[in-house]
């Protein structure tokens, strides 16, 4: 008891000192943070996955070179802070980025961390090492990366092919941890080793995944928690009820939907719930190789039949966001603002006028009340996919399109999309970093793996590069908006709306900040503590 108290006091003093005069509350050490999880994480290897199911629980095992300030809700280039790197410097034309690394950092298995580990990590991501990841979903982020070199044990340099000032934003994402050289990809999936504040203990499918405090964490005094336990509950209604009943300190990352939020607030009025933009958009993928959708006019008519406000009212209780590909302020940084958005085809709030125009287009192609176009709308068999698809089908009726829903068992969805075995699909796209480079190169660039529809536009490709090399935010924004508008009008992947959802916790959970423009960057949890 006394020992516990002294540790507690010591860390409190330490933290008060580190925070200076601004510290309001003394942090308490100890306790287990209990969080529910929505389903078994597919693996423990963040680099191989593109899902929160892995990222949220496993992010505390690792450190990045740099990360987004965990206490600031909006990620931008200005909120990037050091992590394993002590500082970073750019060369003149922003094509060489050099990091100085912390010394004395150790992996969880006791081996020392060096610059070689950084080189290994990005060599793996570029497929340059003999050991390979099974999957490498963010390869396209590093299209412009030439190589990474270790200048010494404590210094690394990223050599870019051309200037890319926002490159560092990618490295700050929760998706960019540094992996150890000496651990195999398989081990990283099943029993990951990092330098982070928590150590992996055990994963039991459908039951739990557990982490314990890294007693030798190189950031002194951190973390505050003794352990983090994620309990897996598949049924959303059950797990939210369990949170209300006090079984958990915290819900899964943005797991509380808008309708459920009302329930949580009524039943657990003390719970803190933050409704945030998730930067996950609900969108359409249209197979441009399949008639009649090889005709851009038909695609355009389809986009114009969509009543975005109806989607937002039904699915988001009026709270989700009308946007293009990028998330607009105040939640995001780069999205088109309302006045500009209205000028984009299909975004005019006068739905009847839009549909009138769309019907005219359809008529000119030979479709009318008696000769209706029959299509299938394919989507994943989960509610957040299925529900918007059902509404879409209803809207398509207004332009002489009879659509039938084809629900694809969730495990086959991406395989089907990859085979291009669909005409219209309803999809969700989440973005790891709120930066146009990540968005465009991942989802719209020619040849990118996650550019599902295979949209490829040489003119836009040039604009992608142009904005990528720009440093001035306002000037870059103008180019970005131009690109976004073109993407929407070409129906490259028409965005229906941008989602919002809440993360809730009981008030004794302190020092946790949810982020407004990405759900993938705020789960280090090293400074979270429990006031129990």
């Amino acid at each position, binding site marked *: 008891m006394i020992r516990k108290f002294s540790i507690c006091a010591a860390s409190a003093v330490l933290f008060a000192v580190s925070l200076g005069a601004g510290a309001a509350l003394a942090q308490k050490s100890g306790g287990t943070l209990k969080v529910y999880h929505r389903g078994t994480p597919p693996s423990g290897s963040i680099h191989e996955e593109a899902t929160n199911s892995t990222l949220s629980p496993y992010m505390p095992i690792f450190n990045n070179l740099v990360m987004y300030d965990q206490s600031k809700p909006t990620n931008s280039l200005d909120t990037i802070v050091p992590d394993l790197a002590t500082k970073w410097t750019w060369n003149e034309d922003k094509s060489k980025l050099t990091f100085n690394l912390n010394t004395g950092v150790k992996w969880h298995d006791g081996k020392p961390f060096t610059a070689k580990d950084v080189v290994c990590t990005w060599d793996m991501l570029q497929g340059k090492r003999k050991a390979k990841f099974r999957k490498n979903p963010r390869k396209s982020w590093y299209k412009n990366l030439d190589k990474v070199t270790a200048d010494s044990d404590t210094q690394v340099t990223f050599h870019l092919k051309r200037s890319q000032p926002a490159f560092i934003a990618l490295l700050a994402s929760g998706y960019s941890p540094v992996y150890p050289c000496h651990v195999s990809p398989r081990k990283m999936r099943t029993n990951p080793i990092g330098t982070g504040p928590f150590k992996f203990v055990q994963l039991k499918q459908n039951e739990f995944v557990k982490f314990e405090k890294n007693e030798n964490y190189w950031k002194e005094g951190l973390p505050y928690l003794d352990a983090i336990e994620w309990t897996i509950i598949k*049924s*959303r*209604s*059950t797990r*939210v009820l369990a949170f209300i009943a006090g079984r958990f300190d915290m819900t899964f990352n943005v797991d509380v*939907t808008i*309708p*459920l939020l*009302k*329930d949580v607030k009524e*039943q657990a009025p003390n719970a803190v719930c933050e409704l945030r933009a998730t930067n996950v958009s609900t969108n359409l993928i249209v197979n441009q190789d399949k008639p009649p959708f090889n005709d851009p006019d038909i695609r355009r008519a389809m986009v114009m039949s969509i*009543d975005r*406000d*109806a989607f937002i*009212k*039904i*699915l988001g*209780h009026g709270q989700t966001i009308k946007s293009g590909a990028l998330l607009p302020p105040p939640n995001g940084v780069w999205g088109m603002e309302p006045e500009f958005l209205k000028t984009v085809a299909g975004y005019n709030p006068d739905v009847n006028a839009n549909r009138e125009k769309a019907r005219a287009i359809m008529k000119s192609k030979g479709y009318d009340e008696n000769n209706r176009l029959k299509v299938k709308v394919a989507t994943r*068999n989960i*509610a957040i996919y*299925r*529900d918007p*698809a*059902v*509404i879409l*089908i*209803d809207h398509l009726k207004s332009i002489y399109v009879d659509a039938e*829903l*084809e*629900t694809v*068992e969730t495990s086959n969805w991406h395989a089907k999309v990859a085979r291009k075995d669909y005409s219209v699909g309803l999809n969700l796209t989440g973005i790891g970093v709120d930066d146009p480079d990540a968005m465009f190169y991942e989802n719209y660039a020619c040849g990118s793996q996650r550019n599902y529809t295979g949209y490829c536009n040489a003119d836009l490709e040039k604009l992608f590069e142009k904005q990528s090399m720009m440093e001035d935010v306002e000037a870059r924004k103008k180019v970005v908006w131009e690109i976004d508008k073109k993407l929407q009008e070409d129906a490259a992947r028409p965005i229906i709306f941008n989602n919002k959802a809440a993360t809730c916790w009981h008030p004794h959970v302190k020092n946790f900040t949810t982020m407004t423009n990405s759900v993938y960057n705020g789960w280090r949890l090293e400074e979270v503590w429990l006031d129990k």
Partner: protein
Amino acid sequence: MAATIDHDAELAKAGAGVEGKWGAFLYFCRRYPLGAAGGVISLLFVLAAIFADVIAPHDPLATNAAASLSAPDQSFVMGADMMGRDVYSRIIHGARISLAVGIGSTLLGGLLGVIIGLMSGYLLGWFDLVMQRIIDIMQALPLLVMALVMAASLGPSLENTIIAISIPLIPQVARVIRSNTLSLREMPFVEAAQALGMSEFRIAIRHILPNTMAPFIVLATAQLSSAILTEASLSFLGLGIPEPHPSWGRMLSESAAEYVRTAPWLVIFPGIAISLAVFGTNLLGDAIRDLLDPRQRN
């Protein structure tokens, strides 16, 4: 209970002295009040399914942003779901799906079961031996496990759900029909037919098949309710009939469960619909069994 046997009472109980169809009907109602109640419930569901287009006040698939999650009121007597679809209309149309699955899978499974059972019991020999092994295999898994694996293999659709549910029914029907056929083929009238030189096939169809109908009907009514429940369970687990079809089980699945407290009508009404339909067919099935299966007659 009396120590002596009242012959008149037993005769009356057994339905002696009942004349005409109407009389038979009245007798059935008096003798099996629960069965009659079940009959009425089942009839209601059948009518709802047949006249769904007329009865349902709304299009079961039409979404309506303004009515999202509205509580039961005059225009939506059982409320509306998240997408503003009328729950009452969906339940009425859902009766079609449930009946289609129930009757479809029972008929399909029953038909295959009867054919296999009849041939096994009548032909015997290697055919019987092989069929018995196949039936053993099919019975080595619980119904829901079998249906689950089947549904996952076939993919989600109305037709596939019917097939997935019908397959586990086959062995049960086949077993009963086979044992019945075995005892029938020793009967004098079958032997007489053989002596007259009737072909094997005709004997099986003309003499044995009609006599196996009673146990088949008993089994089929019992299967009907189990098929409806299995469909609901599969849909609940996400392997049944896909959206936007208004299947009762699907209406109760994950997305409805999310609103279990904010919009309880989404969970209560489809649940009542399933329970009532199954309850009705069960009551009716019990009565039919009592009527047709003399060994079980009380």
